[in-house]
């Protein structure tokens, strides 16, 4: 029973921390903390977090007592950027927006990037704020919605292609003490707009980091979004990201989540396909080692007929790492002629690595094409022998097979510089095996 008792302690600590903040009187935040109190932190019996002991990790590694903001010593962000990629850069350090490091190069006629906190505080909260990502479902959305420090609000006008990508860079400075950050993202893409959005976490120092994200992205009619998350923070990052993308008629979406490092990475990633003739490629790749735990909980919700979704998540687990995949697909009664595919494939390289994978399909319409499959296993011995019998060493043969296994998750990425960069991260990791 001790676990439950300390759960309450941690929950109370967080609520008390909220009561110390200057935002405590904000209506939306107050409502969110009430939801958080009601939902509580997930214990080991909570189905949605059964394989991911986030609460234990938080209890063990973090103090939630209010402390003064951390003075960062970060002087340059160059090492965290993507080489050769000319992009708009939005930087958060320990959850606080950094105007000094951020750099917007696209004209305002192409993209409007503003301070979400300001927009919300001026009592003219954007209409899509907390519209599709509700605070009553996941405790970490509720937690973020009550405690969020800063956020960015991105608007892309109709019929506009944003020619330069947008990178949202989250840096946690954990040199001197733990870092706790809660940040938000709201993106509204108007009709027929196009955008490539990249998000990356990085850190310095070896203290613990807890970061929650709440992200809402609205993709209106005929708009097209490429969304890439790069999760290769080598620090002690514990993160819970709640991301929700809402698609309207004829919109296109490519997502790619690459997870390579971190202590505990939880992605709750949902796509609501609320339009006809939409196309969604929902890809992920987790290449884990050490003690990293990466948990992808995904939802594809087909609400309207005639749309297509293809979810492909792949993982390679080495060392003592653990992967978790949960893929929910809903096809609502009205969503006839839906094509929805899901595949989750895993390779375990050691006896101590693990994967828990679970597809969950709920199909209410009768005229649909849906398929799903999940596999987990070792590298194919016969294929390894075949490569070796042609002069390729065991380690190189393994690297070749793993790279070939991983590569198709990158297919949907269009920007060649970004693709080359992701490819280099993947190659480098796999050649190490």
């Amino acid at each position, binding site marked *: 029973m001790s676990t439950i008792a300390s759960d309450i302690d941690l929950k109370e600590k967080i609520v008390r921390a909220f009561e110390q903040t200057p935002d405590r009187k904000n209506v939306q935040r107050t409502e969110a903390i009430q939801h958080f109190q009601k939902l509580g932190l997930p214990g080991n019996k909570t189905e949605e977090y059964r394989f991911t002991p986030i609460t234990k990790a938080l209890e063990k590694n973090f103090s939630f007592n209010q402390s003064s903001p951390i003075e960062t010593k970060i002087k340059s962000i160059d090492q965290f950027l993507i080489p050769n990629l000319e992009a708009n850069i939005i930087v958060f350090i320990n959850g606080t927006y950094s105007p000094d490091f951020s750099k917007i190069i696209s004209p305002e006629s192409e993209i409007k990037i503003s301070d979400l906190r300001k927009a919300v505080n001026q009592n003219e909260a954007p209409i899509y704020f907390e519209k599709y990502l509700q605070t009553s479902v996941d405790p970490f959305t509720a937690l973020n919605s009550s405690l969020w420090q800063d956020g960015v609000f991105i608007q892309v006008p109709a019929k506009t292609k944003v020619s330069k990508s947008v990178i949202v860079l989250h840096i946690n400075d954990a040199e001197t003490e733990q870092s706790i950050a809660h940040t938000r993202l709201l993106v509204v893409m108007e009709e027929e707009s196009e955008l490539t959005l990249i998000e990356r976490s990085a850190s310095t120092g070896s203290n613990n980091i807890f970061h929650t994200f709440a992200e809402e992205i609205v993709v209106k009619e005929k708009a097209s979004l490429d969304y890439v998350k790069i999760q290769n923070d080598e620090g002690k990052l514990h993160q819970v990201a709640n991301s929700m993308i809402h698609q309207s008629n004829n919109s296109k979406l490519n997502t790619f989540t690459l997870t390579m490092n971190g202590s505990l990475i939880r992605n709750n990633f949902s796509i609501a396909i609320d339009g006809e003739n939409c196309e969604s490629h929902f890809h992920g790749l987790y290449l884990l080692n050490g003690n990293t735990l990466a948990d992808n909980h995904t939802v594809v919700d087909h609400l309207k007929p005639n749309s297509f979704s293809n979810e492909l998540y792949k993982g390679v687990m080495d060392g003592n790492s653990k992967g978790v995949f949960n893929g929910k697909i809903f096809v609502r009664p009205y969503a006839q002629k839906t094509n929805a595919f899901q595949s989750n494939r895993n390779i375990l390289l050691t006896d101590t690595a693990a994967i828990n994978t679970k597809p969950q399909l709920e199909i209410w319409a009768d005229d649909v094409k849906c398929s799903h499959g999940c596999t987990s296993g070792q590298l*194919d011995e*016969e*294929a390894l*022998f*075949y*490569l*070796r*019998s*042609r*002069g*390729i*060493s*065991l380690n*190189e*043969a393994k690297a*070749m*097979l793993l*790279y*070939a*296994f991983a*590569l*198709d998750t990158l297919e949907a990425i269009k920007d060649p510089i970004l693709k080359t960069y992701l490819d280099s991260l993947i190659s480098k990791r796999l050649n190490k095996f």
Partner: protein
Amino acid sequence: MLSVKNLKAKIGEKQILNGIDLQVKAGEVHAIMGPNGSGKSTLASVLAGREDYEVTEGEVLFEGKNLLELEPNERACEGIFLAFQYPVEIPGVSTVNFMKTALNKIREYRGQPSLDAVAFLQLMKEKMKLVEIDQSLLSRSLNEGFSGGEKKRNEIFQMAMLEPKLSILDETDSGLDIDALRIVANGVNKLRSKNNATIVVTHYQRLLEYIVPDYVHVLYKGKIVKSGGKELAMELEAKGYDWIKNELALA
């Protein structure tokens, strides 16, 4: 070139090879024939270094080196090539890239410089003609969705690229129609020289009409029970394997 003495091997608890003796010299073609389950493919696999098998006794020398101590890739670099009975499909790896990597590994082992892209393509085009294989096939994922004939031609193409000293063809005729068989055999024959040797493992005499052996060995219950010239293959075809079995039973 190859000297096999009293080779015994097992898989799990099952003894499959019970003392094989075989001498192969440069320039020779040896056929290993035998009924199903006699150990033909096991012999091919043991020579190539497949780890499922445990060698319990005997020795294998290849150009004076102890082959059994070498990793499969080292054996390939030394000049051994196994054409697989069931070539493996490998999604995401094209034959072209695979061959480029393999060839340069072997060249590196032999102290030769890597081939650049131009030289590699030139070599590839030349070797493609040997087995009448199309470049578009080689740009695709290795063996994925290939027909039986295409897979076997790809094996011989790889053999042509890597220029081994000793080629072991494991049931290369299985699953081939007569045209594909002719193309494959033709490729093998063109690659024959006084410096290399070939071991043809087959159940039927059919392939040996096209690849004419210097020696024929009959394998039965993990031992070579009869050796002779190419006429032995004809005799086997005419009389069947029961003839050997009966002869052994009488002896």
